[in-house]
């Protein structure tokens, strides 16, 4: 799988390139600002573009805006946004209307190479990867006693979180050490309780779950 990296910190950029090469990715570009990334991708689109949120020249949200531009201009390129902080509102912006090929993770996640590589592959294959911290913030908003989320069992809530992160049923089953069939059953139950229209097998289920959580 071909990836492009955009990160202004040399240390992190070089480290990440080494890490990804180690994990079997082909790093086609490693640049330090968003304009260079957009130019390189225009010339030779990779499968996934990995970019930081804070980039030159202002070190504010250049990366985030570049990610949105990329999604508009190159729908086929997966976009993985990395940051020192994760924000619910950024996630909402990035996922706006379309959850195919998008990822938003804390930079910390690079420390678990297996997980991280899996997330990149998911994004590259048109799936999604949302940081557990964002998911947790979204879930924790639903604290009102009359919220249907409160009626989910603890296990169902675990499954919901992992679904929101963009994982497949198989990945969820492995993570929770249960059978894939059980995950499917939990999914049906969750969607029933929350009154979601998309079915548990629907590829748009991530969107449905996130919309529900963000409502």
């Amino acid at each position, binding site marked *: 799988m071909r990836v492009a990296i955009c990160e202004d910190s040399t240390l992190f950029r070089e480290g990440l390139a080494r890490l990804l090469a180690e994990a079997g990715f082909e790093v086609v570009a490693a640049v330090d600002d968003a304009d260079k990334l957009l130019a390189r991708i225009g010339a030779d689109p990779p499968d996934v573009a990995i970019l930081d*949120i*804070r980039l030159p020249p202002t*070190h*504010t*949200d250049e990366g*985030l805006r570049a990610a949105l531009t990329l999604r508009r201009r190159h729908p086929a390129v997966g976009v993985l946004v990395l940051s*020192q*902080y994760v*924000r*619910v*509102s*950024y996630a*909402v912006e990035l996922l706006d209307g379309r959850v195919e090929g998008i990822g938003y993770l804390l930079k*910390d996640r690079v*420390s678990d190479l297996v997980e991280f590589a899996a997330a990149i592959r998911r994004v590259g294959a048109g799936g999604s990867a949302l940081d557990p911290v964002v998911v947790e*913030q979204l879930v*924790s*908003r*639903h*604290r*009102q006693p009359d919220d249907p989320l409160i009626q989910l069992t603890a296990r169902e809530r675990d499954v919901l979180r992992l679904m929101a992160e963009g994982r497949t049923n198989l990945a969820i089953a492995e993570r929770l050490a249960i059978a894939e069939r059980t995950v499917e059953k939990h999914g049906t139950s969750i969607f029933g309780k929350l009154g979601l229209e998309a079915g548990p097998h629907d590829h748009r289920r991530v969107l449905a779950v996130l919309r529900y959580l*963000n*409502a």
Partner: protein
Amino acid sequence: MRRPGISIAVLASLAVAVWLLVIGLPETRRDPSWGVGAILGASFLFAGVVAWRLHPRNRVGLLMVAIGIAWIPQQLSASSEVPPRLVWLALCGLWAALACHLFLAFPTGRLGGRASRIVVGVAYAEAVIFPVAVMLTRTKPAEPLRSIMEFVDDSSWQVLLVTGAAVLGLAMTRWREGSVAQRRAVTPVVAASMIATVAFVAERLVISWGPEDLERPIVYVTFVAFITIPLAYLGSLIRHRIDRARVADLVVTLRDRKQPDGLERALATTLHDPTLRVGYWMADQARYVDAEGHPVTLPPKEHGRVTTRVDQGRSRLAVLLHDEALLEQPLLVEAACAAAALALENERLTADLRARLRQLAASRARMLQWGEAERRKIERDLHDGVQQRLLSVAMTLGLAEATTDPATAGALMGEAKAAVLASLDDLRAVSHGIHPPVLTERGLPGAVKELAAVTPVAVECVIDMVEPLPPAVESAAYYIVNESLANVTKHARAGRAWVRLTRGDGRLMVEVGDDGCGGADPARGSGLEGLIHRAEANGGRLHIDSQEGRGTVLRVMLPCE
């Protein structure tokens, strides 16, 4: 200003002329006390007409006119040409009762308290009963009427003595209870009344018991004492005029004034109220401050203290806190305020400045203290958190390096990685405390949207502003929204909330509202107090609208050019 001078003079002079010509002159040739008596009646009539015209709603004028008229039967009863009739006699004591009424009703025209009403009632009863008793005794009626009338006649001087003492006591009490300014206004008339009361009682006692050669002098003394009452009244009216002339002095004093409270003292002197205080209006904070900039609280409607607002055109300038006696002289107060308007406006601006400086100094001290505390906290967080963790990482890695067993080394590496990730979490928390990263990345609108996104209550954001904002204003607004939304989550039990950011007129308006339970009170929660301090530290102002059960709307105006 009204100019009642001419008509009053005409009316009063007419009354006096009638009095002197018709009632006074014919007998005076034979008895000089007749003339003095005529002057007494005429002077009451004159002062009464003047007072009545100046203060038509005050009964003092009416009472004095009544005394002047009621004096007629008294005067006639002593005449040898007028035959004594029951009606004349029955009425000739009335003037004394009216005088008693006047003494106790002065200066308001109303009798204050039950004791005064009883005493005046007794005086009126005496005025009717005693002359009748005297007259009936002269007609030598049959028993038992005769003994009753004789008893009444005999006991009249005791009743009179008691009544006189009561009048003196009540008048004295009333005078002493009055404020300095009130006393100043009433002292001449009250003193004359008291002297007249003593003279009147003495005269009656002398007539009943004393030696005959004392009778004529004491009658003169009494007459003169009574004449001083209307004269004292007219004198105090003239003094009011003089007071108004002092307004001119005020203007001169104001020009030379140097102390900050000079204006207050100049007004206190001009208005003869040493207790007078001036509160200057601070429009943007909707409160009054004194010359030094300290807040002034208006007294509740308590006894004796009154507030008078001073405006210039449509704008509020100041408020005078003064003695209620000044209400008797509205024209003087008005004239003094008009003369001092420019100085008041000047002083208001200065007081406003002083108040702001005071506030600024206080909030600066608070901010310095707060900044110091924050720095200490950050230092502690770094020391106790990140530094300790990184130290342990170094030790764990050292152990891994030293070990020969690959399995143990792998476990130690995992441990070190976990510690590094944890220290990253710590660092994130610390830097969030220093400055919220989202504010750096997205500015205020993005940061507010993020706050709204993580608030459990549904929050609608209306953002109508142009960036960029000064960083300090941005931070202040962020923390205000953050703390307000935290309050909504914690206390409001709200179904929905909203955040509105509007920029205009060199100000950023931050509004956070909810449809919850309301009843938020800055005096109770320290959270709201913190918000007020944050607003003030940025030169802003906080307004809370939070009625019980009707939601809370919090608005902060932050100046930003």
